């Protein structure tokens, strides 16, 4: 399909624990699915099924054991499991945005600076301010480093830093876990707008309401469980 942004093909992942006698912990096998432009695909399944592992492999934070993860980068589908770290860094910079569960605060960098830097380019500051306003982060916090923020406040900074980017692919891992209803609704609006703009979204949502509101298709991750297959 011409508008495929992400194609995961026969992906498997296992952890080899060298410090524990080299035991191999299989996590995923034969993972295959695609995400098209403007589509929100949700990874479903219970805790421990490997949802976050799939997200991290797509993001490049985990290394695939075998299979392919193809991402449309500069117009062509490229296999990120077969490229150098430097090339993958370029794919991340231009093509993949990520909202993780936990914010990695940088000492001394304010919330507004952090979100602006994620956006980059002209007008990033205004856009960052507008996103933080929409997400109801009090303006008195903008100039402060988020290290001391509450869980919900950090998460909103994280969401703003992910959504300010205009990449073809957006990964969102439990973006609403510690948000109240009003802010969950804002996140739903943000996702809807991204979809309308043609962004392909791969997400994990435990919140049913949010999931119902944004999800086009669920990929059941338990189908890729090696234990089930055995």
């Amino acid at each position, binding site marked *: 399909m011409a508008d495929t942004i992400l194609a995961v093909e026969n992906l498997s992942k296992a*952890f*080899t*624990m*060298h*410090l524990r006698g080299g035991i191999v912990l299989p996590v995923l096998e034969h993972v295959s699915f695609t995400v098209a432009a403007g589509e929100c695909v949700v990874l479903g399944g219970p805790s421990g099924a490997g949802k976050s592992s799939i997200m*991290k492999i797509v993001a*490049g*934070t*985990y*290394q695939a054991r075998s299979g392919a993860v193809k991402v449309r980068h500069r117009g062509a589908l490229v296999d990120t499991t077969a490229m150098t*770290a*430097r090339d*993958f*860094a370029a794919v991340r910079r231009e093509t993949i945005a990520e909202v993780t569960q936990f914010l990695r605060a*940088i*000492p*001394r*960098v304010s919330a507004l600076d952090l979100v602006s830097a994620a956006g980059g380019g002209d007008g990033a500051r205004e856009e960052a301010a507008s996103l933080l306003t929409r997400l109801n982060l009090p303006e008195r916090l903008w100039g402060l480093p988020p290290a001391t923020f509450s869980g919900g406040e950090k998460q909103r900074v994280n969401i703003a830093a992910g959504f300010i980017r205009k990449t073809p692919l957006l990964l969102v891992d439990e973006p609403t876990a510690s948000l109240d209803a009003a802010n969950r609704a804002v996140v739903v609006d943000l996702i809807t707008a991204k979809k309308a703009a043609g962004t392909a979204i791969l997400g994990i949502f435990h919140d049913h309401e949010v999931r119902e509101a944004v999800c086009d298709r669920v990929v059941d991750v338990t189908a890729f469980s090696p234990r089930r297959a055995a």
Partner: protein
Amino acid sequence: MARAITRRQCDTPAQSKDTAMATDTANPLPSPPGPAEGSAAPHTLNTGTALRRAAAHGAHPGADQPRAPGTPDEDAPLLTATGLTKTYGARIGCADVTFSLWPGEVLAIVGESGSGKTTLLSTVSGRLPRTSGAITYRLRDGTVTDIDDMTEAERRRLARTDWGFVHQNPADGLRMSVSAGGNVGERLMAVGGRHYGDIRATAAAWLERVEIPADRIDDAPRTFSGGMRQRLQIARNLVTHPRLVFLDEPTGGLDVSVQARVLDVMRRLVADLGLAAILVTHDLAVARLLADRMMVMKGGRVVEEGLTDRVLEDPQHPYTQLLVSSILAV
């Protein structure tokens, strides 16, 4: 050893750059000593194009040349090390290390004490002679040269204009009894700055960038705290707008509270100036904050490399797994 390299260059006057490089890789001849600071440059032999090229750069250190991101050059490595080996007699310092560094990229080298990371940094930066292997560097005019093909004076000029070296101990990189402004200004004068007022103004601007109060410009770093000294050393190195900076445990001797400021200053400057940097550290958090890519060393060899977060969150090699699992969580 300098003589050996000179002789080889005389033997192969007509070689093209490519064949010369190929020869270097295979040639077991000892390498010349690096541009040791403070030592005289006794060379007298003109090696032709390399010298003229470097001389042109000496006259125009390029401090004011605007960077053009996105030019085709961005796709060519700035520095490439191939099969780099340094032995101390029978003992291995680093063995068969191969990597490339691109403009604007920060590469961290991590490992415990004795893993060879500092030897590798010293060898790549020409401070230690290598035993074998090749290092090529792309000059500002785009020509790629083998460091071996340069004369001692050319390498010293490169180290003064295009490279920076931030030592773990600021006293190793600063002149402790010269004023802060003088420490920064000295590098400017070394690349041709002559106007006192300009030099002082530039030095003052750089002190501000590294968060040293303006009224300390005439104080010697002897009177500075450890964190201030380290930030001054960073200013001294960056004032000439180098393209490549070597960072050797830059926060190693500092309290954690002081580290944050040094790290933040470094992080901002590296990003703002589009610097390439090779960062040696045993602190994985420092590597995570600053580096795009990471190499893990053990026993002088690179055992794992990759994107920084990938190496830290999904380490593959037993040693990396041990290193990562040994971090204390707070």
